[in-house]
């Protein structure tokens, strides 16, 4: 899967929060949603998904509930908590600052230094 980008450390949590902010999802759904909205550019290692979900739930940023999936199977759905909404907002802002800073650095030319 050479075409997909590697994740920066710490960004997985942010992506999961964003994914479930768009609507309750089960674990596999989170994976699909991230793939879908990143146009399959970001690929999540499946093995690290669940530990991340459990960690976020433990921190109280997401909460879970058993429900029924599209194809009528019992599945655990995750949704964002109020705390999670706040965190996502903060992370998004920080990410913006970070991304533009990195972009500035990378676009710098010798004259500007």
């Amino acid at each position, binding site marked *: 899967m050479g075409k997909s980008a590697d994740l920066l450390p710490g960004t997985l949590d942010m992506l999961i929060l964003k994914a479930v902010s768009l609507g309750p999802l*089960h*674990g*596999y759904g989170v994976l699909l949603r991230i793939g879908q909205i990143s146009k399959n550019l970001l690929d999540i290692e499946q*093995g690290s998904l*669940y*530990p991340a979900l459990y960690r976020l739930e*433990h921190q*109280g940023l997401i909460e879970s509930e058993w429900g029924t*999936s599209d194809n009528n199977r019992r599945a655990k759905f995750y949704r964002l908590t109020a705390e999670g909404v706040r965190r996502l907002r903060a992370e998004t802002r920080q990410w913006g600052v970070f991304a533009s800073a990195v972009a500035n650095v990378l676009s710098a030319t010798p004259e500007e230094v």
Partner: protein
Amino acid sequence: MPHRMRSYLGALFRRSRLESDMDREMRLHLELYYDDLVRSGISPDEARRRAGAQFGSLERMKEECRESRGLAWSDEFVRNVRYAVRTLRRSPAFTLAAILTLALCIGANTAIFSVIDAVLLRPLPFPEPDRLAQIVTLYHSKSAEGVDDSQDGRTWEMLRDHATFLDTAASGGGWSGANLATGGRARYVDEQRVTAGYFAVLGVRPVIGREFTREEDRPGGPPVAMIGHSLWTNLFAADPSIVGRSILVKGEPHTVVGVMPAGFRMLGPADVWTPLRPTTTGEGSGTNYGVIARLRPGTTWVQAASQVEALGQRLLEGKRIPPETRVRYTAIPMQTGLSNELRTTLLIIQGAVALVLVIGCVNIAGLMLARAGSRTREIATRAALGGGRSVVIRQLLTESLVIAIAGGLASIGLGYAGIRALSLVAEDSLGVWQNIRLDWRVLVATMVVSVMTSIVFGLLPAVRASRVDIRTALSEGGARGVAGSSSRWPRRLLVAGEVALAFVLLVSAALLIRTFIALRDLSPGFDGTGVMTAAISLDDARYNTSANMMRLFTNSLERIRATPGVESAAVALSIPYERWLNMGARRLDGPAPGRIPITTLNYVTPGFFDTLRIPVRSGRPIDDRDTSESRKVAMVNEAFLRRYLKDQDPLSSHIGLGGSDQPIAIIGVTGNVQQRPGWGGGIPLSTPPAVYVPASQMESETLKVVHVWFSPHWIVRGTGGRESLTAAMQRAVEATDPLLPFSKFKTLDAVRDRTLIRQRFQAILLGTLAGLALLLAAVGLYGMIANTVVERTREIGIRMALGATAAQVIRAVVAPGILIAVVGLGTGAVLAAFSIRALRSLIYGVESSDAWSWGAAAICLLVVAAAGSLLPSFRITRANPAATLRYD
């Protein structure tokens, strides 16, 4: 964060739920992924492979999930505990030794400290106990200092009338019985005499009624009484109308004015209180009152104490004070005053039990060191297999904790048992009247000390071992025939220290045991076999004249003597082994007439010296010729003769007793008998000077005062055995006066044991503690040698294969044990020489350098040390050289 806590606890306690959720969730994931793959045209087999690969190890992922819930730590802990329990069960000797050591040390310390807490630390069971005081006289001279808590009538009146910073009250010294008659039956009850306001000073109100008024507390006041709660419920069915009714106390009707609350107690037990009616004459002319006080609101201790001292100065004017002696009165906290006598004993016992704790901790440390030493290989193996150093340390820590917790739990049981045992004997043997309760603070404190010891010493070697080069450690057993010796030194020092401390305790215990034996085996000066005694209180309105008393004595003794099996009988105010009346006297003739500082006094009926077989050295005993009409006579004992009449012929001498100059002729000299002295600093038995006078020649006024403090004893010798003598006495007195109850019947041996009960208690307790210390030291030695044997099994095998005999090998292994014991003994001897000083006030009749005590302690220690060292080495003789060579 509460949410995380909830999540963690939820995960911890609903563990199975978490596991099944996790399982279902991940299975669904795999199924969905597999479906997607198949849908995109991949073969089912390939899809299954990819799904599996993509998902990685399911178990590792679950573990990560659990970890993110904070469960990893508790999982590891549970695993460690299981492993620790398994490991410990594989070495039961070590485990048992460690747990037992912990339990005994913590339990013993807790029990003893609980007594200290009850006596010295816990506030007295009265409101605002820190404002309660006791008025005492302090004596300072070059050779001695002392605290006297008894006061005379003048002092009491001065304090009552002029101590404006204090509310004062007084009680009569000593506890004598009193006769209480209800429904035609008489009983001997405990009585305490107190002034008006006594209970107000303590801050305790009667449950019904009131306490005595100043009017009732005057000489000649109306006969009134207060009764205790248990007497009220047992005898009067808790009837509140008892107040105002009349009960027959001390031979005359007393109006009950109040009932004290259940459990109320100040010092000794009391069923009945009567007004003290203090005076400055009679009883009040001597120091026979105890004075207590409560600081008035707003008053400080400094103010109160200096006021008492200033008032005391006035009292001391014109009093004869020995040269170079400073006397002053002061107010001290009541708790300090009440526990004064016990403090030394308790602190010595606490010191002893603390030593046991130190020995125990040293033992634990030694055991842990040994264990870690023999586990170096195991630890190295685990490290080699990938267990990180911290994992190994956590594992060892868990083991220490498991031992500590087991020991701690066992110690609570032992502590309770110890407290129960001590509670049973504390009042009789120590005079502890406060309730003894388990002291949790100490339990926790000692537990922390011992647990820390086990953890620190469990860890030190672990840290050392985990630093060990894995290859060296693993190959150690194979490459080196002789076990390393450098690492054995810390342990040897610990064991030597244990032995030293155990020796200190052994010598102390031996000295106290010798003290007890010396006192018990003192020549009594009389023959008490086949003699029964019992007291009757004559602090009774019907017997307040000499004539009435003599009629009672004569009639009852006649009846007793007429009983078959009775050889002889007599009445005496006091019996051997008990405290006698103190009396000043005068020499009226001889080369140096004048004051005799102090003697003891006893009145006796004819037949007394025969009944107790006290030898008459010269002259004649008191007999029927000595009546109230005849010439006043007395006998003195040899101690009196030696001290006060050595320059004159006793049988032509006259003395005066008390303040009187009326001549009393000395008619005979008797041998000394052991008494509990009323002066002379704490020695429990001695033979002070004594004067015997005929009971018939006692003045009625003197008798009245004396019978308040002392109940005369009927003494009967016979062949019929205890039961029949007791029955004869009871029948005889009942026939004379049915409302006159006897106190407890006792043999003179029992009286002696009662007098020596504290010495006995101290000897038993310290003996037990020393035995415990010895046992712990032996376990330490045993463990050390056993460990050496295990470590050196290979070396021993080689030696034996090369022709060494078992005896030679045993010698080589045991020698260090004996050497350590000897070194420890030497160190202990030096320590003991210093610490024995603390015991000096408890040792009588033996020197603190007593060869018997030191020798016995040393022999005891060496025998046990030799046994502790030899036992494990016998394993060598059973060893098969071929097998030991293979042993690693």
